[in-house]
């Protein structure tokens, strides 16, 4: 998936805004009913709508509760000290903070600190993820639990993880060939050079030949 597609999903999350306009009736959007809007009074809307209005200077976005320096610092410590992935305050924390810090930086208190802490949390989690992915591949795992990972984080290991997994599966699987073709190579598979003479040209005696009889006429050329 593309990050923009994940952003699309994240934009469905609800957020509070303070509109600078008024609409008396409820707006019946396909995604739900919102309003009525009264200038100066908080209202919950989907994130995409909040961004739309903010870009038209028609509202102020209220900082989500979890975008708070102390809370995030605590989260960061928790994440650092835990072997596993901790639950994030929002399952789209990176997407939402990225969007808000971009379009409504002025509405966010301590935006620089928040930006830094969130990036730090992201980096810690991604680094843990990398280690987990490596272990998963090395151990030939087929299953793992990864609750608390967010979609953007999961997406960061696509396509590498599925591709590597598939490549290993393919290398591991014995493809079916015709029976007569299954033993065309008749070397000994030497463990190391120490048991064999230095040349790798040695091959089995003629007596370990294929048992199937040769076809009638001997051919000395192709076709």
């Amino acid at each position, binding site marked *: 998936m593309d990050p923009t597609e994940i952003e699309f999903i994240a934009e469905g999350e609800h957020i509070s805004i303070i509109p600078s306009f008024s609409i008396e009736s409820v707006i019946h959007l396909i995604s739900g009913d919102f309003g009525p809007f009264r200038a100066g009074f908080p209202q919950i809307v989907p994130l*995409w709508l909040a961004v739309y209005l903010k870009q038209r200077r028609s509202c102020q976005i209220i900082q989500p509760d979890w975008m708070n320096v102390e809370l995030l610092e605590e989260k960061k410590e928790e994440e650092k000290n835990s072997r596993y992935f901790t639950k994030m305050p929002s399952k789209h924390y990176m997407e939402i903070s990225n969007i808000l810090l971009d379009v409504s930086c002025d509405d966010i208190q301590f935006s620089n600190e928040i930006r830094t802490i969130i990036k730090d949390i992201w980096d810690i989690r991604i680094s843990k993820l990398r280690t987990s992915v490596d272990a998963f591949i090395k151990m030939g795992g087929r299953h793992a639990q990864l609750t608390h990972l967010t979609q953007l984080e999961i997406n960061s290991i696509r396509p590498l993880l599925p591709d590597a997994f598939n490549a290993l599966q393919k290398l591991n699987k014995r493809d079916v060939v015709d029976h007569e073709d299954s033993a065309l190579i008749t070397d000994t598979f030497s463990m190391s050079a120490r048991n064999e003479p230095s040349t790798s040209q040695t091959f089995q005696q003629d007596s370990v030949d294929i048992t199937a009889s040769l076809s009638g006429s001997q051919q000395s050329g192709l076709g």
Partner: protein
Amino acid sequence: MLWEEDGAGADDDVLSPDELVGLLTEGWMNERLSPELMNHLGEYADCMMEQVSQMEENLQQLEKSDIRRGIHRFELQRMQFLLNNYLRTRVDKIEMNAVKVLEEDDAIGGCLLSDGERKFANEYVKHCNKLLSSVTSKIPAYAGEFKLQDAMLEPDLDTPVFIKVKKESTVLIPDYGEGREEEVVLEEDTQHILPYQCVFHLLKNGDIQLI
């Protein structure tokens, strides 16, 4: 009034618009992330397209300066993005293995493809065969016969997928040549990575969501 609660589409009695959005979004994610073609959500997609065109019509009634016009229009763009992306993903998958897809669709009574997609798939196969025969007719017979199906790409159903569990269940991961089977309990609200093959029956039931 911009919105008629009991408007066009039989599904409106059963499904509210926001439920429709939720279903389509989930269906879109599943389609994006699964290696094989899923059963079509044609009914819902059609319903959404109806909502979209209905809404566009209604918007004409609003004044250009009305802020609601811009809001609704923007939402329509989002819905259109969702639909387009969904349909385009499906078309790509159909092209990969049109012959098999048509067979499967037939086998399950037409649930796999929408009418438009079926028509597309048939046309596509026809054109591919035409192209192929223009080439293979020039290859001597002893080189062997070549069918269109050989050129088609079959999805690897063992590819790992990330899932979110909606309803608790247990799956069995078969022995992949390492001599061990594994039973895994999928608890509600947990997330896992597993071979697609092990969980696609849960996906079809709606017990899990691909993420």
